[in-house]
């Protein structure tokens, strides 16, 4: 088993942290994993993405060029990474912020109104958890249980958001 | 017969090889006397510079280290931060302290590192053959400013005590000279005070010493002392430029 995913969005949307959560859950499952971040020159509002690989065997390079899955949180990321999804792969996009329609017909596509769902839960910042929930339910790189158990490790000292984040993850899984 | 003048214990038996009339030998002896008087030979580390005084470690009888040109204050910082209880002094010439190592000097001073800098200002590069120093005075002739230093061409010299006194970090800055006996005694008092400040853990101290370089200046030893008196002191006034120990504790 080897799953490669690129999670991309604005700086501040929590895409890097979402990737760290995924990698941590993989580590908990004793799988091999790598997380490689890429930032724009700007600290906030610029583009940010990370590549995460989860595998049952040794991972060579952490750089992902043609991922099995792309999670696009905003339109520039959607434009940039949609063409890179592997044939037969998966594109999850944040339909709250992306009005364009995907033009690939050789991949599976899942539209997630992540911001609307997160706002519905009262915490707009948990949009990243919604998409991770959807991704885990769809592609099963790790179990949802291990994602949830990894939350305190990835967000230490933010226990008050634990329930909210778990909620957001569940909402994401329900979409699949 | 009572012995009233002897070699300080902190000096080795090696005869100094400095030119006749050179100020280095006097300052070396003053340092040794101060180390003896505070009885700190066994906890002192001296830093020798690049320049004529690179052989300082042969003459002083304590732990010694020689550091890359201009970097004594950086090395001293490393030593004091790791071993706050040792007494560290750096011995630096004008090229070392005010040209290649200006950044190290200013930043160690502004960080308020607790060591003592002994700055030999002879307005010339003695060891390499009398080239222009950052402290060479206007009109002073050197082998790289043969018609005399022209500020329009060579820029102005750096006045170290004045410059550092603008910083918050230093505790004590004084300029002294070696041209006559009374001034040599003042120089020793300044050195002693600088070491005292370090012993008390108060912070950065620097003593600038106007020192004759008869060979570099092309003068006899006696004329060199007169040159300090007539030319240098008027350009580099003696005195205390900063002394936080005089203020009441806050």
């Amino acid at each position, binding site marked *: 088993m080897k799953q490669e995913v690129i999670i991309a969005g604005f700086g501040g949307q929590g895409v890097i942290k979402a990737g*760290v959560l995924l*990698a941590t859950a993989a*580590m908990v499952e004793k799988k*091999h*994993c*790598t*997380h*490689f*971040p890429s930032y724009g020159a700007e600290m906030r509002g610029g583009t940010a993405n990370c590549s995460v690989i989860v595998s049952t065997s*040794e991972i*060579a*390079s*952490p*750089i992902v060029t043609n991922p099995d899955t792309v999670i696009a949180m905003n339109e520039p990321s959607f434009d940039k990474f949609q063409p890179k999804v592997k044939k037969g792969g998966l594109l999850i996009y944040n339909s709250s912020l992306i009005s364009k329609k995907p033009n690939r017909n050789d991949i599976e596509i899942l539209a997630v109104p992540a911001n609307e769902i997160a706002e519905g839960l009262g915490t707009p910042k948990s949009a990243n958890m919604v998409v991770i929930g959807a991704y885990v339910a769809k592609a099963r790189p790790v179990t949802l249980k291990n994602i949830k158990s990894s939350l305190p490790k990835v967000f230490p000292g933010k226990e008050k958001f634990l329930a909210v984040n778990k909620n957001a993850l569940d909402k994401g899984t329900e979409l699949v | 017969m009572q012995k009233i003048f002897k070699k300080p214990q902190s000096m080795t038996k090696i005869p100094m090889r400095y030119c006749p009339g050179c100020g280095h030998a006097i300052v070396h002896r003053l340092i040794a006397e101060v180390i003896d008087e505070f009885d700190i*030979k*066994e*906890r*002192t*580390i001296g830093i020798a510079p690049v320049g004529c005084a*690179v052989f300082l*470690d042969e003459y002083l*009888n*304590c*732990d*010694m*280290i*020689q*550091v*890359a040109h201009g*970097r004594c204050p*950086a*090395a001293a*910082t*490393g*030593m*004091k*931060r*790791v*071993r*706050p209880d*040792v007494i560290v002094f750096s011995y630096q010439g004008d090229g070392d302290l005010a040209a290649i190592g200006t*950044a*190290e000097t200013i*930043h160690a001073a502004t*960080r*308020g*590192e*607790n060591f003592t800098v002994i700055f030999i200002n002879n307005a010339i590069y003695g060891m390499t053959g009398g080239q222009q120093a950052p402290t060479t005075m206007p009109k002073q002739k050197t082998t790289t400013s043969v018609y005399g230093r022209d500020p329009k061409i060579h820029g102005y010299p750096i006045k170290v005590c004045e410059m550092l006194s603008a910083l918050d970090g230093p*505790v004590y800055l004084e300029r002294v000279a070696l041209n006559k006996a009374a001034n040599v005694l003042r120089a020793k008092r300044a050195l002693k*005070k600088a070491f*005292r400040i370090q012993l*008390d*853990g*108060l*912070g*950065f101290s620097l003593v600038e010493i106007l020192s004759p370089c008869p060979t570099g200046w092309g003068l006899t030893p006696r004329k060199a002392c007169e040159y300090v008196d007539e030319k240098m002191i008027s350009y580099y006034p003696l005195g205390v430029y900063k002394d*936080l*120990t005089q*203020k009441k*504790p806050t």
Partner: protein
Amino acid sequence: MNKRKRLSPKSSKPKRSMLKTKYKTGERMLMKGNEALAEGAVRAGCRFFAGYPITPQNEIPEYLSWRLFEVGGTFIQAESEISAINMLFGASAVGARVMTSSSGCGISLKQEGISYMTAAELPCFYASVVRGGPGLGNISPAQSDYFQSTRGGAQGDYRVICLAPNSVQEMGNFPKLAYDLADKYRNPAMVLADGLLGQMMEPMGFTFDFIDVDKLPPKDYILTGCKNRKRRIINTLRMDSDRLEKFNWKLYEKYKRIKENEVRYEERYTDDADIIIVAYGTAARVSIDTLVRGREEGIKIGLIRPITLWPFPRKIINELASRVENFLVVEMSIGQLIEDVQLAVEGKAKIHFHGRPGGNVPTGEEVLKAVKQALK
């Protein structure tokens, strides 16, 4: 004279009660390469760091700025790289396990100080997290500072022990090895990484226990003040040419011992290989992908990954060159490692080259193409 409150920076002597081990030995954690390196250094006894910020290694000083404080060490953000390395010179001379880190441009400035440390026979550890060059270059991962790291660059006949990790696991555990080698041979030792190894996260665990610096073997050459002993002098000026020649031969003997005893490398599938890839660090990781893909297609690829770039694993490459016809050097530069491979192969085999300079990382696929091209 009035007694004033202490105006100078406070004592930074480690206090036993302040030691914090933080992680259990063997505990698996997801860590960033740069942070693993920094924690690994503290764990291995680093108590003095001086450096100057430069991307892509900034996580190292940022981490150490608070972490060293926790263990009673000293962190100084110096005014320049030149000052930083000379602070290390002083701190090492009085006995601390010292460290600095930078990228190529900063290492250039530190090299004079490193030469001085080899001349003074003072141990020190530094990390170079390479970015694209020359000049200001860019901040992407590169391997263009191989010569800078393995050949020195400052004055004199000197060498630096150079370790090249290719995972976060090794980033975290090599500082201990570097400190041990540096102390053993009284010579600087370094870790050569790149932006990718510094920035990536992977599960890792420390393989050694938190070291109590008070229990490290005493050093009989450091300066502490000459109480109850003869005074010590550290001086790198040796005016008499016979004396300097003698010292250089001493270095020669020392470097010979290092070459005999400290070569480290990783060997994969070399037994039946038709072609051997030689690569280190990130390029070696990429090449593992190539190896797996190639073997699936029936191409017998082997891999030699030098872990010590100096001393270079010359002997094994030379031996393999007697029976393997083709070597492919993969590196993220226009060809630096290849010169060491050429020296090791001694003309006995064909040496091919696949380079990606400028901050680009090759893919396993493109290296496989280069393998196929080489075997044509």
